[in-house]
Structures are given as structure tokens and as C-alpha cells.
């Protein structure tokens, strides 16, 4: 995460990497800037300005460079407290139905706006959906986004969208596609919100496609006219015909939710529901209705990378607690999500300053603008890392991205090298740390973490003596 305090306002910075660019300013950045400058919507992140850091910036090797602009360009965004993945990852947290409806409605409204303005997002996933403490959801990271024309004539790359959210047409090699690709991702997120975990976590493209077939059935000319002419259909088709099982697997979902999900997770992009039609779905107009964003509970700042960070700190704290043999019984908190982490994970992220006495709150001094290191991160998503260890599969890697290593995104290189392997605690939703804490009850509406003093709520579930603060805001 990059924060800057400028005239008292906290903003988010996204660094535009200029390394390894033979063709000057990256076209992907130009696209993103152009797109963000033309989109003005309450559910789309607002690009405030672009700043270039004055003077020479240290590059990764610390050697001066001929190009004084190298590494010194940042996009300045409004600061958002959470991303959807970070929020959903909060251990024990369960979204309420009106809350899910509220997020889904905002996601679809923002996406509909993009599609009307002929922009494909091409990387819809939880960590790119930012949420502020007023419950507003905004689409962010347009680094892979593109303008499209309605006739779909242009050849576009199919190496986009993070694997788990990538639609079958891209996996089958389509280079002409439209807004339906984003709608598939929305379907995956929708199911994930209802299901509590990612629904199609493939490790490779063929595994991803198989998972899709297992869920949605195998494609044929009946359910998807033209599929047999897809570039990679021959090598990627299902070994045996599979039946569609969405209804069966997700039979525990609410009827209207399932109905909508069925329309989103349609193999044939031409038959997949549009954002506009999805907004008209019964789901959003039946009780319980989507809640007002303002009524949602506010949470301590949580981004995907921060929840990870917290787990690491918790582990340190836990170790310290063990040493002190302070084994208090775990406390049940009715409102606060307990801090949990998987047991026995090997955490190797030495760049987070997580000493035993490190406070739990996130009010670490924000890095200054020209900071070369982790400060250059946009919403601080972890970049790179060994596959399998990482919580997220590599994103669709677009040729000519900001940084062609490891991911189509930005600046994986600006982590200190040892930070590269920082594992996302594998199995974030795995077995809880054994604290025996039940899921907190986020009652609708009154969820502002209560109003009484913080004395009882700030306690460390492990009973450590530290003065921990959950920074409710």
C-alpha cells in the first residue's frame, strides 16, 4: 500500500514502472490513464492526478540512471480502505445477504457504466474491487482494461483476466470478445461471496477449463454454437461429456441468487447475461433487498496484503505469548473478527516489520511519495511469488505490460528481492488457529463495532499483554 499525506488527505499511489521499456512510456499505462480519465462514476475508482517525483529516483540497484524519470511516475487515486478479497478474508467474517446484494449491485452498476462507455475491464477479481468505510464499492486497476468497439472486429489478446476468473472463451483462445468476459468474472465473484471461497481455483489453463467443465458442463455446438471453431477447442475439449451441475453444487444458495448465477456462468458468451440485465434480476428486487452502503459495518482497513500481514504479526504475537506462558482462554468476541492464521505455515516475508511488540494497528507511518521500495505499490497487492504458494494465481499476462515479469501488473520488481517469495499464508480460510472463536455476528445495520468504549473489544484473543487496538474508524 502506498499512502501519502498531502494536505491532510490520504491517497493511494500506483507506480508506473518504466524499467525494461524499450518503447518509452508503456502503452498499457497510456490506456489506463485515458480510460480512467474518461470514466467518472461513483463505482469506478477516481484517478486524481499523475505525479512525477522530482529529481532522480533510486532504481532497484541504487545506481543512478540516465533516464531521470525512471520509476518516478505515480498515479494518484482516492484512498479506499479495503478490497473485497481482503475484506472477505477477514477470518470468521461472513457477509450478510443484503451486504452481498449491495456489493454485487454496485459492482454491476460500475461495470455496466464501463461497458456502456466501451471499456472492458479485463481483470475483475476481488482484490480489484475496492471498498471504503462508507460501504461504497469501486472498480479499480484498469491496467488491463481496453476500449472496444461493438462490432468486436479488433483482435484482442486472450491473455487477460486472472486465471480463476477467466471465462471459457478466453481459455479457448478467443481474440474477439466483448463485455461478456467481465460478466463471467462477476459470476465467479458472486459465487465466491455466497460460497465463502473461490469456486474455480485452477492452477493451469487446462485445469481451469476442466474445473469450468465440471461445473458448467462441457461445451458443444448445442449449448455454445461455434465453440468447435474456437482456436484451442481441439486440444482443450473435455475428454468426456459432462453435465452442467451449477444447480446441484450450489443448491444451498437462495433461489434468486442461483437463478442469477446460472445466467452469469453461461459458457457461451453470447448467451451470458449483461450487466444491465443482471441489475434487473429478481435477486436485487426481492427481500432482503440490497442494503444502503452507508448502513454497512465499517471495518479496520484491510487489503489482501494487510490481512496477510496481520496473520504474520499474529503469529509473532502468538509465539511471544507462548514464551510468556500466558495462556488465557480464548475470548469470544461478538463483533470483532478474531485474528486468525493458519497454523504451521512458513512465513518468509522479512520485509514486514513484525516484531513481537509490534502494534496491531495499521497506522504505520506512510511512506513518502518518492519512496522506492514497497511504497510504490498500488493498494499493496502482493505481486509475484511462487505459484501455488501465492493466494492468487498469476494474472493474465499481457504482452507489453508494465512489467513483464511474473504478472501482467505493476512493479513486482519494486519489492525488495527477498520479499518476492512472500507467501500469502496458504490456506487463508483453512483451519483456524485453534482459538476456538466462532464467526462474529455482523448484525445488519448496527455493525459499527458498537459504540461503547474499546476496553473490552480490543483484547487480544490470545490473551497477550500487548495493547492491541483494532483501529475501527
Amino acid at each position, binding site marked *: 500500500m502506498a499512502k501519502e499525506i498531502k494536505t491532510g488527505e490520504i491517497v493511494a499511489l500506483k507506480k508506473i514502472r518504466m524499467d525494461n521499456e524499450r*518503447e518509452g*512510456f508503456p502503452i498499457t499505462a*497510456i490506456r489506463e*490513464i485515458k480510460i480512467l480519465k*474518461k470514466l467518472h462514476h461513483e463505482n469506478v475508482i477516481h484517478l486524481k492526478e499523475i505525479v512525477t517525483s522530482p529529481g532522480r529516483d533510486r532504481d532497484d540497484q541504487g545506481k543512478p540512471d540516465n533516464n531521470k524519470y525512471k520509476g518516478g511516475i505515480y498515479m494518484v487515486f482516492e484512498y479506499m480502505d479495503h478490497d473485497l478479497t481482503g475484506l472477505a478474508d477477514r477470518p470468521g467474517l461472513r457477509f450478510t445477504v443484503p451486504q452481498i446484494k449491495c456489493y454485487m449491485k454496485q459492482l454491476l452498476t460500475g461495470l455496466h457504466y464501463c461497458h456502456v*462507455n466501451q471499456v472492458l475491464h479485463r481483470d475483475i477479481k476481488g482484490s480489484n474491487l475496492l471498498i471504503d468505510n462508507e460501504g461504497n464499492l469501486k472498480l479499480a486497476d484498469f491496467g488491463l482494461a481496453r*476500449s472496444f468497439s461493438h462490432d468486436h472486429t479488433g483482435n484482442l489478446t486472450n491473455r487477460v483476466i486472472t486465471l480463476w476468473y477467466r471465462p471459457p472463451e478466453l481459455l479457448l483462445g478467443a481474440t474477439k470478445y466483448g463485455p461478456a468476459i467481465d460478466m463471467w468474472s462477476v459470476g465467479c465473484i458472486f459465487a465466491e461471496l455466497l460460497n465463502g471461497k473461490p469456486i474455480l481455483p485452477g492452477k493451469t489453463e487446462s485445469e481451469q477449463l476442466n474445473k469450468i467443465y465440471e461445473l458448467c458442463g462441457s461445451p458443444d455446438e448445442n449449448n455454445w454454437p461455434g465453440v468447435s471453431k474456437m482456436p484451442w477447442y481441439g486440444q482443450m475439449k473435455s475428454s468426456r461429456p459432462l453435465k452442467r451441475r451449477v444447480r446441484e453444487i450450489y443448491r444451498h444458495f437462495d433461489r434468486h441468487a442461483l437463478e442469477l448465477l446460472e445466467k452469469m456462468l453461461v459458457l457461451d458468451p453470447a448467451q451470458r447475461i449483461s450487466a444491465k440485465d443482471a441489475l434487473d434480476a429478481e435477486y436485487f428486487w426481492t427481500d432482503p433487498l440490497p442494503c444502503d452502503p452507508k448502513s454497512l459495518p465499517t471495518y479496520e482497513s484491510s487489503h489482501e496484503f494487510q490481512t496477510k500481514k496481520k496473520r504474520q504479526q499474529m503469529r509473532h504475537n502468538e509465539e511471544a505469548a507462548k514464551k510468556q506462558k500466558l495462556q488465557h482462554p480464548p475470548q469470544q468476541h461478538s463483533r470483532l473478527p478474531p485474528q486468525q492464521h493458519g497454523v504451521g505455515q512458513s512465513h518468509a516475508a522479512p520485509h514486514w516489520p513484525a516484531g513481537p511488540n509490534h502494534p496491531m494497528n495499521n497506522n504505520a507511518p506512510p511512506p513518502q511519495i518518492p519512496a522506492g521500495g514497497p511504497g510504490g505499490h498500488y493498494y499493496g497487492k502482493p505481486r509475484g511469488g511462487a505459484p501455488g504458494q501465492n493466494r492468487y494465481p498469476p494474472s493474465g499476462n499481457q504482452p507489453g505490460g508494465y512489467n513483464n515479469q511474473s504478472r501482467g501488473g505493476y512493479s513486482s520488481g519494486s519489492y525488495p528481492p527477498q520479499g518476492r517469495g512472500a507467501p500469502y499464508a496458504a490456506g487463508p480460510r483453512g483451519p483456524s488457529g485453534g482459538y476456538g472463536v466462532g464467526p462474529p455476528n455482523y448484525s445488519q445495520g448496527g455493525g459499527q463495532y458498537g459504540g461503547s468504549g474499546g476496553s473490552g473489544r480490543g483484547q487480544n484473543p490470545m490473551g497477550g499483554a500487548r495493547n492491541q487496538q483494532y483501529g475501527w474508524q
Partner: protein
Amino acid sequence: MASNFWTSTHYKELKDPEEVNVVHPLDAQRGISVEDFRLIKLHMSNYISKLAQHIKIRQRVIATAVTYMRRVYTRKSLTEYEPRLVAPTCLYLACKAEESVVHAKLLVFYMKKLYADEKFRYEIKDILEMEMKVLEALNFYLVVFHPYRSLPEFLQDSGINDTSMTHLTWGLVNDTYRMDLILIHPPFLITLACIYIASVHKEKDIRTWFEELSVDMNIVKNIAMEILDFYENHRLFTEERVHAAFNKLATNP
């Protein structure tokens, strides 16, 4: 680019004519007059077109490139931003922004092919370095709406969309980029001005059509007058005068 012109940076950044033709103090010190300034911008617009035609770049990209170049000089001096480097750099940038990428190598190749003159010789690294300066000078404001977009629609609507009218108006729109009109007026008014000139020239009476549009015809006529003035004076823009202007730029005050 789709989306609404009225919410765009293009609209927000429109300038008054007086703001556009202000000679930067640094240039004024070298004796550059408003006329010289205009001449150099015209010359550089022509250079961009010529270069682009050799590389076979679309007209729309040329228009964007010229607009970038003109935007740069509303903020920066000719002295500090060498026009003979800024012009091809704007073309390079416009190619990216309009999704028809041209490699810097190819651009530099044609630059050298087109002009043997030392003063036009630049290398890839010069272009890339200037690109950043141009982006900063533009304040990363890259969206341009062009008069071309509304042209077919207007011609159709006014019922004069035959081939000769299309050609004439299209050519007129191309020529508007030799002026600063794109920095000053909303593009659709420039389109209307071009249609107005063409209709008068071809003696097609579409006055009622114009009247039915809810636009201020005075502005349209003023733009048309500016375009006609430009044609009137066009033969005065000689190579010698361009050279003289560039020579002034080269002198140290």
C-alpha cells in the same frame, strides 16, 4: 473514444483564443512574434502529417498528434521544447494513445529519410526522453475528441452526404489542424463550420437545417471565417518565413 465530450478533459481544457497565441517569455526574448509562433506550429503540423503519411498512419492519429503538439505549446516554450523533436514525439505518443503503435525505430528511420537536415536528426533515446517531457507538459491529458467523429452523422442528417461533399468537408477538417481551432472550440462546432463552408462553396442551401440545430450559428460562422482567413493567408506562409522564424529561435538572446 466513446464517452461524453462534455465531461472530458478535452472540454474542460478548452482555451480562449487569446490564451492560445501567447508567445512564451523565453521565446519572446529571442524575438519570436505571434506570427512566427503560429508559423512554426503550422510548419510542425505539416511535418507531422508528412511523416505520418510516409509511415502510413491514420488521419485520426495525425490529428491527435497535432493536437498534442499544440497543447504542449500552450504551456511550454519553443526554446525549451525543440519543435523538431516535439513534433515526431507527439506522433509517437499519439500512435500509442490511438492504439496504432509505431515503433520508435521505424519513426526515427523515416525522420532521417525525410530530412537530411541535421536539425531534424534525432535518435530513439531522444524521442523517449522527450516523450516523458511531453506527457508532463500535457499533464497526462491525452483524450482528444475530433471533428471527424460527428462529420458523417451531420452530413447524413443534413442530406448532403454525397461523395464530393464528404471529400470536401473531410479535407476542410484536415486543414483545421493547421490552426489552433481544436484547442479552442468543441469539435462538433468545427465540423459544422466545415460543413457550412462546403455548403456555401457547393451552393447547397441547408440554412434551414442549420437553423434547426440548437447551436449558436455565430460561433459556427466565426470558426468558418477563421478557416477562410487561413486559406486567404496561406500563400504568405513561405519557406523563407519559416526559416527566418527558426533562425530567431536558434539565436541566443
